[in-house]
């Protein structure tokens, strides 16, 4: 039935998680309520993100060969577990399509103003379908390589911004009591769920991990690194743009980079940001798409993964531009989605699963 089990090494998992976390979160303004303390809010959300990841990792260690839909059925029993797992499908597909929409819209408003969104989004989704048809192992190895490209581009951008003298530390400090409160408020639950809670997708990837002893260490390292990178990037954006502009712009990283002008020579580094956007969106999309495909595979007992890749991709593509008429509507939907549905699937259900599992094991309720 299985040809050969695809495996992912620690470095690859590390790269995948970092790219997934940075994904779109590095580009769009997150945790707006926290004002100029956004960088702090990200760091405050970090411990929560680690705890969430430990929940996922622990569940994986209990059921090393099953993805989330598998152990949901084991823990809750098939009659309750199957429908609950099924609910993950639309959530994953919709959230994936949101990433696609965001990437497409940002590309259009930043550069491709005359290109229809259908074209941009389908090009991206074709790349996703292609790499998924090659399998998760190929995808993970790609991540390992691309991570370096992203890091190098990020370094170039940050060095350019800093050496162009744009950074104003004044915009980040001082922090007053009310700022701490707001940072805490936007960290939990908003930043905890987006981007950390989204790691829920990795419950479908972890079974491919080949060194289960290292699972917690690798994951935590990746989350800490990505949180620091996110916090740093947003701090730079905030310090350059100031709170007022940061909160108004749709694409703070792009606005930041357009301000770079070093000695009238190094300027207009927009292309680097666009590349970061495309790469980040690509990895996020692919992970979402893979998660949806894996769950559908498991639930409907389809043996060949690649057969579901195209339908999943097409659904994502269409829901990406059918779901909202304009970007504002899309953002409003996103806010509601982030506050109501996503926490249930990213945090509540996994934590409940773990608790029920622990209770059942303790009292010997597994047959």
């Amino acid at each position, binding site marked *: 039935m299985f040809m050969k089990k695809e495996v992912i090494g620690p470095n690859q998992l590390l790269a995948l998680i970092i790219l997934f976390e940075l994904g779109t979160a590095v580009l769009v303004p997150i945790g707006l309520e926290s004002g100029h303390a956004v960088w702090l809010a990200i760091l405050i959300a970090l411990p929560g993100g680690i705890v969430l990841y430990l929940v996922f990792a622990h569940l994986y260690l209990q059921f090393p060969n099953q993805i989330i839909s598998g152990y949901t059925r084991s823990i809750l029993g098939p009659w309750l577990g199957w429908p609950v797992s099924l609910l993950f499908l639309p959530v994953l597909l919709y959230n994936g399509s949101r990433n696609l929409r965001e990437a497409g819209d940002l590309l259009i408003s930043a550069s491709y*103003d005359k290109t229809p969104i259908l074209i941009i989004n389908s090009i991206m989704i074709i790349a996703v379908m*292609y790499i998924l*048809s090659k399998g998760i192992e190929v995808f993970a190895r790609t991540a390992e390589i691309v991570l370096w490209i992203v890091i190098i581009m990020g370094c170039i951008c940050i060095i350019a911004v800093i050496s162009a003298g744009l950074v104003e530390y004044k915009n980040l400090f001082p922090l007053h009591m009310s700022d701490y409160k707001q940072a805490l408020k936007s960290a939990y639950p908003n930043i905890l769920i987006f981007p950390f809670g989204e790691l829920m997708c990795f419950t479908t990837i972890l079974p491919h991990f080949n060194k289960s002893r290292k699972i917690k260490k690798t994951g935590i390292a990746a989350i800490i690194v990505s949180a620091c990178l996110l916090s740093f990037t947003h701090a730079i954006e905030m310090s350059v743009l100031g709170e*007022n*502009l940061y909160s108004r712009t749709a694409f703070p990283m792009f606005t930041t980079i*357009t301000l770079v002008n070093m000695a009238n020579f190094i300027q207009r580094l927009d292309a680097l940001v666009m590349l970061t956007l495309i790469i980040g969106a690509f990895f996020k999309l692919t992970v979402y798409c893979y998660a949806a495909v894996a769950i559908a595979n498991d639930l409907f007992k389809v043996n060949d993964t690649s057969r579901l890749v195209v339908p999943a991709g097409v659904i994502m593509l269409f829901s990406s531009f059918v779901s909202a008429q304009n970007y504002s509507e899309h953002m409003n939907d996103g806010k509601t989605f982030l506050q109501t549905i996503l926490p249930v699937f990213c945090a509540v259900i996994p934590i409940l699963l773990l608790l029920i599992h622990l209770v059942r094991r303790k009292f010997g309720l597994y047959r």
Partner: protein
Amino acid sequence: MNGKGLLRLIAIAVLVLPLGGCWNSRELNELAVVSGIGMDLVPETDEYRVTFQLVNPSSTSTSTSPGSGKPAVVVVSATDKTMFGALRRASKHVTRQLFFAHTQLIVLGEPLARDGINDIFDIFERSHELRLNSEILVARGSDAASVMKLLTPVESLPALGLVKKAQNTSSVWGENRPISVFDVIHGITGEGDLTINAVKINGDAEEGKKKSNLEGSETLTETVMSGLGVFRQGKLIYWMKDSEARGTEWLLNQIEETVLDIDADDKKESVAVNIIYSRTEVKTTIENGLPVFHVTIAEEGSVNETDSFVDLSKREDIMKLEQELEKKTRAEVMQAFHKGQQLESDIFNFGNELKRTNPQEWAALDGDWGRIFAEGKLDLKIKAYIRSTGMSLKPYIPEGK
């Protein structure tokens, strides 16, 4: 999916992918690069007249050979209720689509500046082509269009020439500072008011449009940087000149380098001190409901010229000069501050700083910040140091002459 199907998918993808790139294609020979934009108000309407300075590619060779005939830029204007409307309406005059990613300069005409500039900068944030870091100038005593039309010597692109002029004088003379659209938006959205570099036309603006203006060794019509325009609530209310303008830059911690002529014992304003370092720190406290601005300026300079006898080899004389330097700086700063208070216009960023460092006291202040600022006190501390006296110590001028 089998191998064949996959191959088909790949083939389709490979064929389709490059096509997407052509959708937005704009070739260089179909673009008109805009180097500067001038914004004016059409008299007695609320329409904008927007003037574009377009680079004329055939005559902008790197060598500034005068023989090429045509000027390096072409200027077109269009009128509309909105900025974007005007720039698209300009298509009636231009053979190519305007391209804004290389716009270096924005000039505001005086009538527009007096009418109010608060609502014209949205397009710079919203558009992906226009840049927030374009320099901005306000035309003193003329409209923006005549500034845009003026040809400049040395630099072949007038817009670029103006930008360089502004930057040049900012870095060595200190009455101006580089101000971009980004800074202006910050000024508008922040507390308090703002200043914008002013530029003036010397001579006959009509003559300046012609290339003949550049043919003599002396350009009869030229643009000169002319201090700062003070904007209160987005409306131009005052022109700051000379020491007032420099005092403002001092309070804003924007002095990079400047020259002060200070008094010697036997001759007024005869020692030229080149300020090479200056740092201004501002702390605001509230006392009895009124702000007190504690400003500390630390400046370092070197004596670059003395036209009367000063014994620069003696420490006491140097200290005397340092005191003179402090006095002179204090006079300029006070002059600027009093002008700001008289105008009830906080152009020194004091309000923003107070709000940032002490939001509670800021919230407790009631009423209009401009008026509160006008009643505030300035507690000015200046520390001046003379670090060097150039290549010589004692001047050749004999003592007491």
